[in-house]
């Protein structure tokens, strides 16, 4: 699903964000990406969602070499990636419903289909009753959930999340993570950048750790006591 081959990223200002990163996330997998602030987590997600291009190396999404992708195909690749952003990226002058509906509207679905899907997505994040409100009037956590609903509304094969629980209380964070697990159980590949180590520890999933732009660990989180087991090399 996602494959990074020897990827380095240096921003135009000269900041080195990633150095020779190699990893692979298989279809149907759920994996965490963690590391200190500034380690390069967001950069990895931006490379996947085509907001940035690698300076060196290749990024593959579903076998597509993103370096080879023509500009006009970018939107179609993005439609298959649900993205949840650190900053929610909601349209404040539209209702919650319209925000969530956006990916479907862009694909030109019928109104009926849109209403059904948006309602289901909002139901899932518990905001069904707020669909006519503006995101402005919602709390940070609620806005985050609107973003989640929008990311999953067209049922993408891959879901990316950058600090999806940054603004949520622990209980809600756990709920959201369980939601991700549910989605994963239905076959959605999920890749979450977070530094909420407590939450990662509670969930037994593969965790990739970055430090200063280098991938330093790729391990399966075995239990809640911080004991990690390195994955065999062929699973990386």
């Amino acid at each position, binding site marked *: 699903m996602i494959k990074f081959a020897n990827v380095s990223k240096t921003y135009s200002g000269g900041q080195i964000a990633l150095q020779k990163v190699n990893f692979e996330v298989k279809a149907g997998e759920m994996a965490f990406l963690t590391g200190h602030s500034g380690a390069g987590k967001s950069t990895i997600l931006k490379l996947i969602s085509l907001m940035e291009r690698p300076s060196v190396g290749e990024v593959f999404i579903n076998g597509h070499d993103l370096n080879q992708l023509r500009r006009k195909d970018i939107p*179609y690749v993005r439609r*298959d990636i649900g993205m949840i952003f650190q900053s929610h990226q909601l349209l404040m002058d539209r209702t919650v419903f319209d925000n969530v509906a956006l990916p479907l509207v862009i694909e030109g679905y019928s109104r009926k289909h849109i209403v059904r899907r948006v309602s289901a997505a909002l139901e*899932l994040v518990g905001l069904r009753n707020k669909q006519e409100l503006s995101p402005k009037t919602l709390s940070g956590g609620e806005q985050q959930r609107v973003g989640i609903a929008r990311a999953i509304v067209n049922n993408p094969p*891959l879901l990316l999340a950058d600090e999806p629980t940054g603004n949520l209380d622990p209980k809600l964070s756990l709920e959201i993570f369980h939601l991700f697990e549910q989605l994963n159980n239905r076959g959605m590949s999920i890749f979450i950048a977070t530094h909420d180590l407590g939450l990662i520890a509670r969930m037994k999933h593969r965790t990739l750790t970055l430090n200063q732009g280098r991938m330093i660990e790729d391990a399966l989180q075995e239990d809640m006591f911080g004991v990690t087991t390195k994955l065999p090399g062929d699973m990386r």
Partner: protein
Amino acid sequence: MSLLFHGRETTPKVRKQSLWQRIRGGFTNHIRQILASLGELWRTPLASIMTIAVLGLSITLPSTLYILVKNSSQVTAGWGQAGEISLYLKEQTTLEQANGTLLSVRLMTEIADVELITAEQALLDFEAQSGLTNTLSYLDENPLPHVLVVTPKREHLAPTAAEHLLERLERLTHVDFGKLDIEWLKRLTAILSIASDIVWIIALLLCISVVLIIGNTIRLNILNQREEIIVMKLVGATDNFIRFPFLYTGIWYGLLGGLMAWFLVVFILWWIQSGIEALAELYQADFVLSGLDLTALTVILGLAVMLGLLGSYISVQKHIKEIEPK
């Protein structure tokens, strides 16, 4: 939950929409965007009205002038066709000689019609028109000459051709001189042609400024919606999807501005109609202002829409690509 996963492929892969899905989706989107862009104008009524007014007024001026110039050339063309040459015969010419000249003129191929107005008849006409009766009794003799009123064929009515014909007629034996009142016609034609050039230049300049104004308005719209454009690109909107609402906005500006121009032109022409008719009456022409037909409406609307579209197209081409999520 289950609904949300309805229709998902078992092996997730990058889905490309089929051609049919793209066409259908594209069509739905266009209808939505056409209506949405109109709604967008409605949301900022004042700004929209100003832009539409600029467009409407800019088109009104050249349209009105154009219709006026076109009408005057039609009228003068009509005058040219009614043009006659008056041949004044020499003083001593007898009635027989006059009739002889009449015959030889009638034989010329360039001539459509010729009529002899004898000196006596001319005097009677003069008396009737002036109200002075028995003029002859005060005069020793009739001072008026016989006159041949010559109507050339249509193709000899253009100013130069008519002048050539006049020269030939003047060489006839009993003809004293001929009169073709053509100078003023030539002058008028020249003035009208200059006027029409000026109208075209004004129209061109105004059209350019309309394109620039619309372009700038659309540019501001695009910049205002920067955040929105970024979010839409992030969730997979194509450049075209983002582009079209702005193009439709341009078209709406054009359409509404064009309608406004049409109504203004109708109003202005109605306003000056009576003045023009009074003027035309001075030249004893039956004159009805024409040009306000369906063709003119189509041309005005078409032009306005083209300008709106062009302005927005230039803006959209330039600015939408530049806005990329970072």
